[in-house]
């Protein structure tokens, strides 16, 4: 596919973003299906079979069905997207994703006019995922976006980082990336996308609705009940890394703030 660098999403006042190393990105992960420790996914995710892979696209679409990943990829343009990645736990990275816009995939299936939300589901394979033996979350992991969020050009389905196939611990072979939302919204190893007219349930919201809202937009002014979201620590700074201020919408205010015009972001956290 064509490599397109320099999308508006990458512009930043204080100069170019510096990506974290492949090693950093692939060794420090939250993927609770493989364990709750940050190193568990990189230790255990090799067990996940990612070939063959298909994504079921159903619900309010014109062409519902199982879409084989290779068929999807043959019709998509893979681009480079250098995005900030802000975890709800107040750490952050900069990731050079490779992927395609979710809007293009949804166009393949033909979104019907009544659809208002997209719901996503992670693969659930107890025989390959040691973490799902424990009820840390209500498996399978599910996520959701409002349709306009899903169709925003910043929203991508990632297939790789650094031009290499996505490591399993980062959500191979296909994951959502929504750079202006906390990382848990960017659901990994997606096997189902359902278009619907109702706001879909989301995994962390089901586990703790007080702490994790449906929107979960990065917002330095709305704290997590257990910690401040005003600052973040960039991964890779070592033992004496300084915190830095968190940006509204993770620095993508120009691109996405209009999606939430007139909304109370404190109530819709």
């Amino acid at each position, binding site marked *: 596919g064509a490599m397109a660098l320099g999308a508006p999403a990458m512009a930043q006042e204080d100069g170019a973003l510096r990506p974290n190393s492949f*090693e*950093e990105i692939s*060794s*420090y992960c939250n993927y*609770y299906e493989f364990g*709750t420790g*940050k*190193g568990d996914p990189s230790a255990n995710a090799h067990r996940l079979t990612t070939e063959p892979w298909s994504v079921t696209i159903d619900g309010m679409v014109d062409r519902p069905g199982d879409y084989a990943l290779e068929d999807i990829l043959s019709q998509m343009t893979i681009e480079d997207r250098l995005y900030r990645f802000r975890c709800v*736990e107040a*750490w952050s990275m900069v990731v050079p994703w490779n992927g395609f816009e979710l809007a293009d995939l949804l166009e393949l299936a033909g979104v019907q006019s009544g659809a208002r939300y997209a719901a996503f589901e992670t693969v659930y394979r107890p025989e390959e995922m040691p973490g799902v033996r*424990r*009820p*840390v*979350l209500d498996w399978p992991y599910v996520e959701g976006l409002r349709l306009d969020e899903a169709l925003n050009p910043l929203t991508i389905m990632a297939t790789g980082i650094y031009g290499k196939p996505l490591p399993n611990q980062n959500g191979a072979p296909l994951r959502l990336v929504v750079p202006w939302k906390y990382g848990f919204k960017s659901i990994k190893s997606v096997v189902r996308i359902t278009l619907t007219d109702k706001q879909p349930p989301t995994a*962390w919201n089901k*586990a*703790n609705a007080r702490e994790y809202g449906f929107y979960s937009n990065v917002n330095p002014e709305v704290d997590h*009940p*257990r*910690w*401040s979201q*005003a*600052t973040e*620590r960039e*991964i*890779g700074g*070592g*033992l*004496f*890394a*300084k*915190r830095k201020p968190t940006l509204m919408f993770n620095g993508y205010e120009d691109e996405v703030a209009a999606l939430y015009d007139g909304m109370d972001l404190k109530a819709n956290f």
Partner: protein
Amino acid sequence: MLVDGLNRAARRVPTWVVYLALALPAPWFFWLGLTGGLGVEPIKALEHEYGELALKLLIAGLCVTPLRRFAGVNLLKFRRAIGLMAFFYVSAHLLVWLVLDVQLLGQIWADIVKRPYITVGMAAFVLMIPLAATSTNRSIRALGARWRKLHRLTYMVALLGALHFVMLVKGFQLEPLVYMGLVIGLLALRAIPKGRPLRQPVTS
């Protein structure tokens, strides 16, 4: 046989050996943090290592009395070392949080009062201060029966420490609940009436 062997060994080991052995992980983990051995986010990792060690030592300290009463193993001479080293690791945990993690002094107080899991953790630390301060032989003599009463605060400290861990994790996780279970179990053993000891205590 095993019990007598353990007791003989315990009598031979000087307490400074225990202090030293329990102190070594502190610089070791710090070194690992400096050199990449704790992964790419060493601050949280170091904070967690110190905190978990503190909790383990609190639990070890709670084991001393039941071990003597129910198994006849006498490790009483090490209990002060275990308790003081628990305080040392709680202090190290707190320092990593203050200096390396939160960094902003203004935010620290806000965190303590606004975030229940931090309030609980701080309460445990504060309750340990009088215990550490009265850990000398002189205090034990001076306080007499009141010393024993005061040092029952350890029970509360261990409960609060385990609760702090339970409250801070995301989702339903087993590990902190195991710690909490151990603390509750060890405290429950103390509620067993002292009428007939299950085994005669070995001379200490």
